[in-house]
């Protein structure tokens, strides 16, 4: 053979080639030599001299293919007229499938045989993909008249003759098959393969198309499939509804959904899987939402987790399907939470409050993780419900919400007198943070916490300093540095004081000096401790205390410059050795009580007026502490009530079984109610400072900002601590303008700029 173009007799060459084409399409054996010469024939025709005969070859081949398919179609004539129910229909599907399998296989070989024509002749004139996509001047007509690769041509001929004529009958048979699979579940694997193969032929036949390759599949088959499936699902649903409870119905629907998913993958094109699922959901779930929801409240309140899990699975795919379930859950948590903390009574209200609330929280957190896959929508409903319970006013008629106080007290209780182990305490503290995070006015909590912390630290009531620090760090993690700044300063003051005491003792040693008492001093920095105003507590310090004070002050002033010390005698306590009636006692008491008793070292009796004037105590303070000493029977009074003229004397007959004890003169006799009120007013002051600092910080980084934008920034920054009122923010802005930290910009009245 030669590769040179030559003159040929078309009919002769085609005559030979045609025989091979026929064999290939019928999948008959083709000898290698025949194949090779046919391959050459295609080439020879395409390059024929004086003019290539490719177009003629194309036309002849097309005609040949058409005839071949027409003959095939005739085989199906009987099915086109008769009623094809049952086995007959199944037979037709098998027959079509096998005809299609053979044809498409043969076509593949043929396409290969025509490689030269495809590559050199047809592809060159093919419109580029981009041109198809953007329709660049090429009309659809031009595309349809254009020549196709032989494989594609063959497929198109199959579509035009076979599918066009048999499609509807085939689809009907397929749907019957699928219905049998649904109802009787008795299709053989051959049946399944056939149905899948036939469906797939609707796709394969247009697979070569760049655009709209699924068009035939969708219009011919998918639409009808969805329609038939829809009515099947509908009838299934109404059948189930007649006999099933909600719980059973959900199980059945989930079973159907699972089966349909398997079925879809078995038969149809990938693209239909979702649509089929949607159809099933619409007919079996959406259409019966009211029924599904009819027992929802009961499921939630009776904690029916299996049912709720199923309900979640069914409603999740629907648009807004879960909305109602979430709302019901939210209400349930709210009610249960509110109930759990309602009417708390007794000493341990704070413990009950936190632990009851935690129990509710844990229960629903667990439910959401086990049943609702930790769905964020449900978690946020949990948060919303808890926040609403915790921040709502208690039903005892008080205007303020006590949650902040109660949670702080819970922590105080743990850090003060728990019998639990360290790790137990720490885990309880961590859990208290869960509740703490829901408190809106976290700064109120902080105020209470700092008061309680102060008492623990000053009176050495903390069970463990490490735990104190752990807790402060937990709060810092939750709310940031500013929130715990003062708490931290209080905590460090205690450590610094231990240090100072050691240095002071060393200092005394160096001077060869000695105090006759065991002295321990806590030096607190003003501002950090919530101790209220320290003025107006008058007290003439007796010389027994005077000396250590003087020595410590001189030591302190040599260590620091610009500092002054104020002694908080009302917070001091000590041990006094009392020897009466030949017995010694070691009694712990407050400084004022010690000072009173020490007056009697050198005299047996004195009038009340004398004692009070010598110590320069206020009337209240004097009464309170004297009374405690009379009650403990160390001092005697000659009158019933404490009067100026009453005479105080030492009870020389004093006797007590215990040699070491404590006299508790109502330590800090503030009523809890007063304390709460004070705390609330302090909160306001601190909020103003917090807001001002926030405004300065924001303006410093943004330089210029509109009023509303500034307000938004402030709200978002202060969210971690409290929800400030807009009037308060405005006041703070005004005050910063006064102080010239910021100013209104010249060109706009609602814009501020930072003054460097």
């Amino acid at each position, binding site marked *: 053979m030669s590769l040179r173009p030559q003159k040929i007799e078309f009919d002769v060459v085609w005559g030979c080639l045609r025989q091979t084409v026929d064999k290939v399409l019928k999948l008959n054996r083709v000898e290698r030599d025949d194949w090779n010469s046919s391959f050459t024939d295609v080439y020879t025709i395409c390059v024929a001299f004086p003019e290539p005969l490719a177009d003629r070859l194309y036309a002849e081949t097309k005609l040949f293919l058409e005839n071949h398919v027409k003959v095939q179609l005739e085989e199906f004539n009987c099915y086109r007229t008769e009623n094809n129910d049952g086995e007959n229909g199944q037979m037709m599907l098998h027959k079509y499938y096998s005809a299609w399998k053979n044809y498409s296989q043969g076509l593949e070989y043929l396409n290969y045989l025509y490689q030269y024509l495809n590559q050199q002749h047809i592809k060159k004139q093919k419109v580029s993909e981009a041109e198809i996509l953007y329709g660049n001047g090429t009309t659809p007509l031009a595309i349809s008249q254009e020549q196709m690769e032989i494989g594609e041509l063959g497929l198109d001929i199959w579509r035009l003759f076979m599918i066009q004529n048999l499609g509807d009958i085939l689809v009907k048979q397929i749907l019957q098959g699928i219905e049998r699979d649904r109802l009787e579940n008795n299709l053989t694997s051959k049946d399944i393969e056939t149905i899948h193969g036939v469906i797939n032929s609707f796709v394969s036949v247009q697979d070569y198309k760049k655009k709209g390759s699924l068009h035939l599949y969708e219009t011919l088959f998918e639409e009808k499939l969805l329609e038939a499936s829809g009515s099947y699902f509908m009838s299934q649903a109404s059948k189930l509804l007649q006999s099933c409870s909600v719980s059973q119905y959900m199980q059945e629907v989930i079973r159907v959904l699972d089966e349909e998913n398997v079925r879809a993958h078995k038969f149809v094109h990938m693209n239909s899987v979702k649509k089929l699922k949607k159809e099933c959901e619409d007919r079996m779930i959406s259409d019966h939402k009211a029924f599904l929801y009819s027992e929802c409240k009961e499921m939630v309140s009776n904690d029916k987790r299996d049912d709720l899990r199923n309900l979640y699975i069914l409603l999740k795919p629907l648009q807004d399907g879960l909305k109602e379930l979430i709302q019901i859950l939210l209400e349930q948590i709210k009610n249960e939470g509110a109930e759990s903390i309602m009417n708390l009574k007794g000493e341990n209200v704070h413990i009950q409050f936190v632990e009851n609330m935690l129990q509710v929280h844990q229960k629903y957190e667990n439910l959401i993780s086990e049943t609702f896959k930790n769905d964020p929508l449900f978690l946020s409903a949990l948060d919303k419900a808890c926040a609403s319970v915790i921040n709502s006013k208690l039903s005892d008629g008080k205007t303020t919400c006590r949650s902040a106080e109660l949670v702080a007290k819970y922590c105080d209780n743990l850090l003060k007198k728990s019998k639990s182990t360290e790790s137990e305490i720490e885990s309880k503290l961590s859990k208290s943070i869960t509740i703490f995070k829901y408190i809106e006015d976290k700064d109120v909590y902080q105020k209470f916490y700092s008061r309680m912390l102060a008492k623990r630290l000053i009176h050495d009531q903390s069970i463990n300093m490490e735990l104190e620090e752990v807790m402060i760090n937990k709060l810092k993690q939750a709310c940031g540095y500013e929130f715990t700044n003062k708490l931290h300063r209080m905590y460090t003051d205690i450590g610094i004081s231990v240090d100072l005491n050691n240095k002071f003792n060393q200092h005394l040693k160096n001077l060869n000096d000695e105090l006759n008492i065991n002295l321990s*001093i806590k030096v607190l920095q*003003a501002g950090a401790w919530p101790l209220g105003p320290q003025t107006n507590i008058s007290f003439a310090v007796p010389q027994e205390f005077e000396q250590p004070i003087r020595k410590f002050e001189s030591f302190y002033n040599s260590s620091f410059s610009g*500092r002054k*010390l*104020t002694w908080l005698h009302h*917070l*001091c306590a000590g041990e006094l050795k009392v020897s009466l009636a030949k017995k010694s006692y070691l009694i712990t008491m407050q400084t004022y009580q010690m000072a009173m008793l020490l007056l009697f070292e050198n005299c047996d009796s004195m009038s009340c007026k004398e004692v009070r004037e010598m110590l320069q105590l206020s009337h209240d303070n004097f009464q309170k502490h004297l009374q405690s000493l009379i009650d403990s029977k160390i001092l005697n009074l000659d009158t019933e009530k404490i009067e100026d003229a009453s005479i105080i004397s030492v009870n020389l007959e004093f006797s007590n079984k215990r040699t070491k004890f404590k006299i508790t003169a109502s330590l800090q006799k503030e009523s809890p109610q007063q304390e709460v009120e004070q705390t609330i007013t302090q909160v306001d002051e601190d909020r103003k400072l917090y807001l001002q600092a926030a405004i300065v910080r924001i303006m410093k980084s943004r330089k210029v900002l509109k009023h509303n934008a500034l307000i938004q920034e402030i709200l978002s920054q202060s969210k971690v601590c409290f929800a400030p009122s807009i009037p308060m923010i405005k006041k703070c802005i005004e005050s910063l303008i006064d102080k010239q930290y910021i100013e209104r910009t010249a060109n706009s009245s609602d814009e501020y700029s930072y003054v460097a």
Partner: protein
Amino acid sequence: MDEEDKISDSENQTKPEKMFTLKRWNSVAMWSWDCSTDTCAICRVQVMDACLRCQAESKKDATNKDVTCVVCWGECNHSFHHCCISLWVKQSNRCPLCQQEWSIQRLSS
């Protein structure tokens, strides 16, 4: 307890018994800057706290008080946050409270 009794017994032998003896004193003192006013007249924040600008920057130094925001006393004995008065004197070199020429007497430590 026994030990305590022994001590008092031995004391009994040496000197006349005292009725009341101070043994231990746990006292509490508060330190503050030695200022005539508690509040800085410039930023109107307590001198014990950091000034407004320093608070806005919220120093992440949690273990110690804000080291950078110290208190400053003038020769006139008025005191302010050092940050506040330093900015102030850039505009007018006079004490905001008494209008005397500002000169630093000392800084806190």
